[in-house]
């Protein structure tokens, strides 16, 4: 396929996915007691667009299925069929199926058998639910689909037909079917007798016959379907267009046409064919886990490849273009001013232009960063559906309130937030929320509510998941933490510290009986992802009133607020987020433990002192005793005081990857370029602390 076509296909998948999302959102937001006609039109239009585009781009399966949805919607739109809650569920499932279709079509796979069955079942239910048989849709998508095939130079169809069991009893003339088919074009058939049971179990009045047919024809698929009109039921008829002329036929196809091998045999052979991984495992070359891991990796790569585009609002691009225009003018101003730099006027012009340049570069930087920003809506949009389903499943009435969907977040964040937020919302519905009876007993409204809020506060983004459920049982958490050795016996942690314990790995997965169970299922994933993003988690909980979990994230991954320091001859950057304070140390505060480990007593707390220069092996000419500046850092609940030579200032730095041309370095999270063009390394505080702990252990 040409590049251009591939590009259009990508656009089709993106658009179709968006349309499906739109359908889902509309379905969920509809008030079934007072359906807005406009909403129905929206649904119908979306289904219609997907159908039309799918047919154009050569995905007849997608088109055919969407057509079924569309024809279900038609009487609803006309007011002939009420939109019942059941029908809504079916339509939602339909939307899911469209997504599944798209997912597989994008990979060039056909729909897995399981999904095909689900689809047949769903179509059946959509139709039976209508009460009356559907009016036939003459504008058939099948024509559209077939047309697309002819457009691509369709040569015909490969047909698999399994005769209905009662074909003989009904007196169906099977022979005639083939005669009719033969009229359409060149016909090749392979009877499949493998479905006939052993003779002692055979009821001679049952029909167990099946055929694989290869029909070369230019007729549209609809004509073929017509032939089978009275015998096609459920999924006993499968029609697939043959690969277009000019494309390389599969080996199976050649064997079929040239050597007369029956399609049933080919299918059987293919089903025996093992995947590479299985073969290797069988040979004993690799462990199954290794293969699974590799498959996971492959999947991840695939996902990455797919997610590598960003849709940017035209408005954003326009503003960038304007800005670049202004920059060009400023540059001209500067050039002119530099020519007259010896005059007073020239000097004034110069400083004015420089001021302008300063403002424009800053704005340009912000706007370019803004391209990576996408509204948090992208994550939020999946939750109405999820809460709806979960509520139904668990028999809880839950409403979902969302605020601040327009808040923008870095694209990377959006992707990494999906899992954590899904866990949090699911846990809130499943475990945070009481049952209806419990709610009634405690005098709350039967309808529980979950609020998802996103807001931008200064340099960070807050995302909150709040439920009005029973809240965390801190006594239980305390007990459990003692049992699991997370807390020392007799310690008195604060409420906040106890709340955060629910994010410890496997904290409550072990014992499913307690009422906080499940609150820890996957919660460590939340912690992990948020930490990777450089954010933190806050938990507020009030017994009987509910729980609020707040994710605090930096605005972007590309820029960081840093504290630049000097150690020896080198400049380093501390991420400001992990710096608590910096202070001058007094000799009296420092004590040595075991001879060389230094600790400092700060407001009654003993904190280890880490000599940055020593830890990083920096060359310098200073005597250790002179280093009196300490930067107090915190990570993962541990604190340390890092001794540095000089504090250079606080500034925003652009993060550059060390890994592009070099490699990962322990204790360093990246690099940045300072105003003078030199490279400064950004310190990875948690990594440094681990390294220090390792050295201490080795030294002890």
């Amino acid at each position, binding site marked *: 396929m040409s590049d251009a076509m591939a590009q259009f296909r990508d656009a089709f998948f993106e658009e179709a996915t968006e349309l499906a999302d739109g359908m889902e959102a509309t379905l969920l937001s509809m008030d079934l007691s007072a359906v807005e006609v406009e909403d129905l039109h929206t649904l119908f239009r979306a289904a219609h667009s997907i159908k039309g585009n799918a047919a154009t781009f050569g995905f007849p399966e997608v088109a055919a299925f969407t057509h079924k949805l569309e024809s279900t919607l038609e009487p609803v739109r006309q007011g002939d069929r009420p939109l019942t809650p059941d029908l809504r569920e079916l339509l939602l499932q339909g939307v899911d199926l469209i997504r599944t279709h798209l997912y597989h079509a994008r990979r060039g796979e056909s729909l897995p058998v399981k999904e095909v069955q689900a689809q047949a079942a769903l179509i059946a239910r959509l139709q039976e639910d209508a009460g009356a048989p559907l009016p036939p849709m003459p504008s058939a998508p099948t024509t559209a689909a077939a047309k697309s095939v002819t457009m691509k130079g369709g040569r015909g169809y490969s047909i698999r037909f399994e005769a209905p069991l009662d074909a003989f009893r009904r007196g169906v003339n099977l022979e005639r079917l083939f005669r009719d088919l033969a009229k359409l074009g060149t016909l090749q058939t392979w009877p499949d007798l493998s479905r006939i049971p052993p003779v002692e179990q055979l009821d001679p009045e049952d029909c167990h016959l099946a055929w694989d047919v290869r029909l070369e024809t230019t007729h549209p698929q609809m004509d073929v379907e017509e032939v089978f009109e009275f015998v096609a039921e459920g999924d006993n008829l499968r029609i697939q267009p043959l690969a277009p002329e000019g494309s390389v036929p599969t080996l199976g196809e050649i064997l079929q046409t040239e050597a007369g091998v029956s399609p049933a045999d080919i299918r059987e052979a293919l089903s025996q064919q093992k995947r590479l991984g299985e073969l290797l495992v069988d040979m004993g070359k690799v462990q199954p886990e290794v293969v699974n891991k590799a498959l996971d990796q492959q999947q991840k790569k695939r996902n990455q490849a797919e997610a590598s585009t960003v849709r940017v609002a035209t408005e954003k691009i326009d503003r960038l273009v304007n800005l670049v225009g202004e920059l060009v003018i400023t540059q001209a101003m500067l050039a002119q001013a530099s020519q007259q730099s010896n005059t007073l006027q020239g000097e004034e012009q110069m400083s004015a232009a420089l001021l302008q340049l300063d403002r424009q570069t800053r704005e340009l930087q912000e706007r370019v960063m803004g391209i990576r920003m996408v509204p948090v809506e992208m994550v939020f949009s999946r939750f109405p559906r999820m809460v709806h389903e979960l509520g139904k499943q668990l028999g809880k009435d839950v409403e979902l309130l969302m605020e601040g969907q327009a808040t923008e977040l870095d694209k990377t964040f959006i992707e990494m937030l999906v899992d954590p937020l899904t866990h949090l919302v699911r846990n809130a519905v499943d475990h945070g929320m009481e049952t209806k009876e419990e709610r009634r007993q405690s005098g709350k409204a039967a309808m529980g509510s979950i609020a998802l809020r996103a807001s931008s506060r200064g340099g960070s983004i807050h995302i909150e998941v709040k439920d009005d459920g029973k809240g965390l049982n801190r006594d239980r958490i305390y007990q459990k933490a003692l049992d699991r050795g997370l807390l020392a016996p007799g310690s008195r942690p604060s409420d906040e510290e106890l709340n955060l314990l629910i994010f410890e790995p496997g904290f409550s997965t072990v014992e499913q009986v307690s009422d906080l169970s499940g609150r820890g299922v996957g919660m460590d994933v939340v912690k992990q992802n948020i930490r990777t993003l450089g954010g933190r988690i806050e938990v507020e909980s009030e017994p009987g009133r509910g729980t609020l979990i707040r994710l605090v994230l930096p605005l972007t991954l590309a820029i960081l607020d840093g504290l630049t320091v000097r150690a020896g001859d*080198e400049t380093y950057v501390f991420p400001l987020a992990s710096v608590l304070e910096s202070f001058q140390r007094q000799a009296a505060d420092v004590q040595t433990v075991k001879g060389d480990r230094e600790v400092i007593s700060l407001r009654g707390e003993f904190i280890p002192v880490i000599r940055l220069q020593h830890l990083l092996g*920096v060359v310098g000419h200073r005597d250790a005793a002179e280093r009196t500046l300490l930067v107090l850092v915190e990570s993962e609940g541990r604190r340390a005081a890092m001794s540095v030579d000089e504090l250079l200032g606080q500034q925003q730095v652009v993060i550059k990857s060390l890994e592009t041309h070099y*490699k990962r370095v322990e204790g360093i999270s990246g690099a940045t370029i300072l105003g003078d063009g030199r490279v400064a390394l950004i310190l990875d505080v948690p990594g440094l602390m681990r390294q220090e702990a390792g050295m201490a252990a080795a030294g002890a």
Partner: protein
Amino acid sequence: MASTEASSQALQQVLCFALAGEAYALPILKVREIQAQATITRIPKAPPYMPGVINLRGAIVPILELRHRFSLGEAPEDTRPVIVIVEVQGRTLGIRVDSVSDVLDLDPNAIRPAPELGTQSALGREFISGLASLPGATGSDTMLILLDLDRLLSDGELSALESAAV
């Protein structure tokens, strides 16, 4: 051998540079640019032959200290080292040399395979793609050592870069 194989090729352009008084050369097609002035930021606990990184117009590029790589000792105080930026196997790397002299057209026929230098030598034969003799100013020939960048970089610890990048 290399000479018969090369006879069909046109002249090969190489960039010549000096290192501890010896003349070396790199195929010019591997060279991206030459940086005279750059401050190296040291990387903690990096091996001495790869001490740090520089800022190359916004990209962070590691530096290979060729003197250390070949165990030629420290550069004398008065030399101002130059960084040759090369691209090898898709990654950018700076090579620090004493000075850059010339771009030469070499006749592939004049390139001879390097003799066995013994296993003790830090500059093993494997890094050398050949030797060429140049007519010197004084009449005596000078020898030019042609380096094989790919092999130089695929060796030992440097290949850690490769695995780290995947």
